[in-house]
């Protein structure tokens, strides 16, 4: 492994100062389940690795605050998946967190790391998109709140600026009932990176949000405010047309080893339909 300096700042301000000073030569370390692999295979060669796990302000935790669920940057998938608030208000996120990697990976992998890594296949991205999550970032100029849809650029690239790090992820607590579901496609049942991810959320007002990933350079979200998608008794052709318009944003890579573009596009439709139906069923069963 390439040699690097390892620092463990005690405050966010300290971390920001280091990130600012070193720019792209510094890498933030949370759970390390993405970063350590890249350090080992040499695809990341930072001169300094900044570990966030000793920063008191970023201590793991999920709390409800001013109509939001606030998930701190060091909260791991296991805790996201098990958290009663998340399960109640954001079940698709709990579902997504519960399928990331294996038990060992989930005990280590953070939600913030998943989105900062910005893999198009990141499992939690579609659910965060349908729930309208906000990424809280702190940098040399203070705190920014970035809507999640404006956070992803392409694989490995986010809109975080030099010196910025993510301190928390916020989800609005819903005011009405909703139902949601996360679906993914992998090559085996055991842990695997997804070749298609889809989340769908339907609310009692008839709004449907559908987001998907792994079929293009970044995960994307679409909304249908007409109420047609949310209504299973609506005209089949009309519903299909809306879904087709949503899926038009997919452009899977022909170079991928995981699945061909044709298969991904076909599975996007299968999973999309299943996630939509699942979300509707849950809305009518017991809500989200």
């Amino acid at each position: 492994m390439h040699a690097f300096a390892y620092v463990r700042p005690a405050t966010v301000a300290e971390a920001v100062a280091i990130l600012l000073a070193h720019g792209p030569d510094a890498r933030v370390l949370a759970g390390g389940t993405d970063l350590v692999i890249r350090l080992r295979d040499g695809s990341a060669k930072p001169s300094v690795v900044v570990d966030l796990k000793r920063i008191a302000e970023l201590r793991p935790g999920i709390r409800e605050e001013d109509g939001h669920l606030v998930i701190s940057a060091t909260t791991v998938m296991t805790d996201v998946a098990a958290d009663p608030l998340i399960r109640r208000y954001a079940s698709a996120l709990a579902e997504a967190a519960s399928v990331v990697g294996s038990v060992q990976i989930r005990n280590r992998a953070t939600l913030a790391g998943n989105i900062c890594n910005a893999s198009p296949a990141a499992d939690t991205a579609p659910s965060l998109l349908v729930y309208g999550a906000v990424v809280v970032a702190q940098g040399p100029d203070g705190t920014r709140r970035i809507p999640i849809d404006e956070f992803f650029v392409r694989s490995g690239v986010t809109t975080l600026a030099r010196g910025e790090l993510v301190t928390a992820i916020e989800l609005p607590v819903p005011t009405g009932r909703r139902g949601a579901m996360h679906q993914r496609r992998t090559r085996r049942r055991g842990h695997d990176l997804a070749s298609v991810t889809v989340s769908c959320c339907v609310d009692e007002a008839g709004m449907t949000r559908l987001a998907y990933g792994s079929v293009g350079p970044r995960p994307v979200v679409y909304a249908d405010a007409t109420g047609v998608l949310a209504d299973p008794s609506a005209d089949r052709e009309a519903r299909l047309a809306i879904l087709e318009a949503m899926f038009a944003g997919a452009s899977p890579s022909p170079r991928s080893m995981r699945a061909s573009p044709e298969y991904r596009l076909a599975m996007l439709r299968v999973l999309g339909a299943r996630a939509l139906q699942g979300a509707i069923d849950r809305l009518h069963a017991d809500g989200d």
Partner: protein
Amino acid sequence: MSAPIIGSSPNRVGGIARVTGQHEYVADILVADALEAKFVTIDCAHARIISVDASAALALPGVLAVMTAADMPQPVPRFGPQLEDRPVIAVGETKYHGDPVAIVVAETRDLAMQAAALVHVEYEELPAVFTLAGALDPSAPLVQDPSLRPKDRFASTNVLREHPIGWGDVDAATADVVVEHTYTFPMVTHFAIEPHAYMAAPDGDGIAVWSTIQHPNWLQKVIAQVLHMPLAKVRVFAPDPGGGFGGKQHAKYEPLVALAAMHIGRPVRLVLTLEETFQAVRRASAEVRVRTGVNRDGSLVFEDIVADYLIGAYADIADRVVGKGSYPAAGPYNVPNVRIMARSVLSHTMPSTAFRGFGNPQVNWAVESNLDEAARAIGMDRLQIRLHNLARKGDAFIPFDTPADGHWEQTVLRAAELIGWDSPLPEGRGRGIALGVKSGPTTGLSYSTVRLLGDGSVVVFAGTSDMGQGARTVFAQIAAQELGAPLGWVAVVMGDTAVVPYDQQTSASRSTVLMGNSVLQACRSIQKQLSAMAARLHGLDEAQVTMDRGVIHLPDRDLTVLDVLVPGLGRLGGELTGNGEVRKDADPTHPLSGAPAFFEFNCTAIEVDVDRETGDITIARHVTVSDVGKSLNPLQVRMQDEGAAIQGLGHTLMEHYIWDEKGRLRNPGAIDYRIPTSMDLPLELIGATIENEDGPGPYGSKGMSEGALLCISSAVGAAVRDAIGVPMRDLPLTPERVWRALQEPSS
């Protein structure tokens, strides 16, 4: 008489050390002053090496050497179990992606890696072949230098050898229905959890070599030859490997590491990464065309099989895999006319080698799948067509060979019963059943020594490698049973050629039969000595004393071993020693140079559920039944069958090498090469054995450990075809492939 230890399932000898992390694997062994090695490779398959500039690497403090072919003895030594065609390091050109151009030796592993990245290799890419079609094209570049085999009629082609076999007259035979299809089998790797690791240290005027090798005595010969040393000066340590599956049978990089250690005069260690292991060991892929002739009553008339196996750039043991694996390709059936033509085809890929099943799964997939098609063509039940043609015990199903050595119909009927073959099939599901037969070892030589110490405890010396199959436990059970010692009083010594007598190899599911018999023989020799001792002590004739299971029978009473041993050895104490030698010589008149010691026979039956939208296969029920003669240790037998079955689900459902157009492996490692995890297991996995005590091994046992892998693909494929109504002829049966099959207009 103590309760029989044979037939019980005591805790695995060495098991606690393994599961608590105490077991020392080669990569764990600390040797003072050991250096670490790393390969220098290029991002190209077949290339002419123009120059190697190691100056930047050598400038790093702590880097001791960067060795290329130029630093080796000249001509560069070559080795190989079949042909001595493989140089210890690339000479003049690389022949496959990952072929090492140089080896860097440094004080630490990180330093060796850093230095390896600094070695600059200038090379010119050469034309290359990576597929059967490419390699068999008349204008294909030759993988092997034709001067290596001047008299060979194939020298100017990429065919290494042909293996024709058959009987009857296929061309003259006429059948009511003929079914012909082509099937493919992917390139896969063994994926042993323990990394392949090698270490060598100059040792006085000799050398010590540590390796994750399955055949330590074979390795000893290779090293002796490369270093021009007598065998006695080459000491091979072979700690119990953490999984081998055939991938650790033959020498790979031990000669290179030994030469580096001798050159530098210090111990050198090389531990392959998982990615490097992908470049070191794999199973041959294959394309198999089968023409099956069958009459309307279900009788097989002929099997006409053409099997091309894509082996790598060097022979390793791959050509033997092709010859021996294709030999029983027509299956365990009485087929009057058979023609098999198998070819080993060289390519610019890493050498393929032995892998559990040894060339059989490739042809089984094709021939058993085609048999299903034949059954469908004549409207016969797929179980019935098998029972109708199956060889019964004593049938010479391969006319010039060992006859069927088991009541195989019992195995098939048991599997059919366990899967509920005749029960109604739940909606959307499919069932399949397939048979597998594999020739066991055709030659063998296993020496053993057993020492009965003065207190009645026992030391067994056996050169088998226990790589997880549990050989230590079985040998300890045999010695305990025969010499009346508690299992915990038996020590089994393996894996040190300076101490343990010669064993040819650990392969072909042989050790329980061949080494087991050898250990039994050594124990029986001690029993004789004890009987003689008892006769002497009690003033009897030797013929009046007998011994079995640790009990010495006098005409009027029974004695324990200690009753005889202690007075018999007398005041000075001492011990009794017995030797075993089991030899199965080659038979030059036999097509495989020897009839098999036994057959491994398995029947696998599968029930699947297929998601027609996604192509996902769920194995709802998996039944695997093997004829093992006698389970000496039922739990270990079961674990072998389960392990083989699950390993086989890998190449059946998900595993395959992916290449780019330049012959570079795209998916080495654990991320994009998927093996089954616990979550991918069948919902229900049912194992059973047939035990008629009719095997050649101790207590009527037969070899087992590969059987459950032989026909797994065929059984799953048959079940999927039953569920979706569309045949699939290319493995693995990934969801995407199933989905594609379902998109075909015919479905």
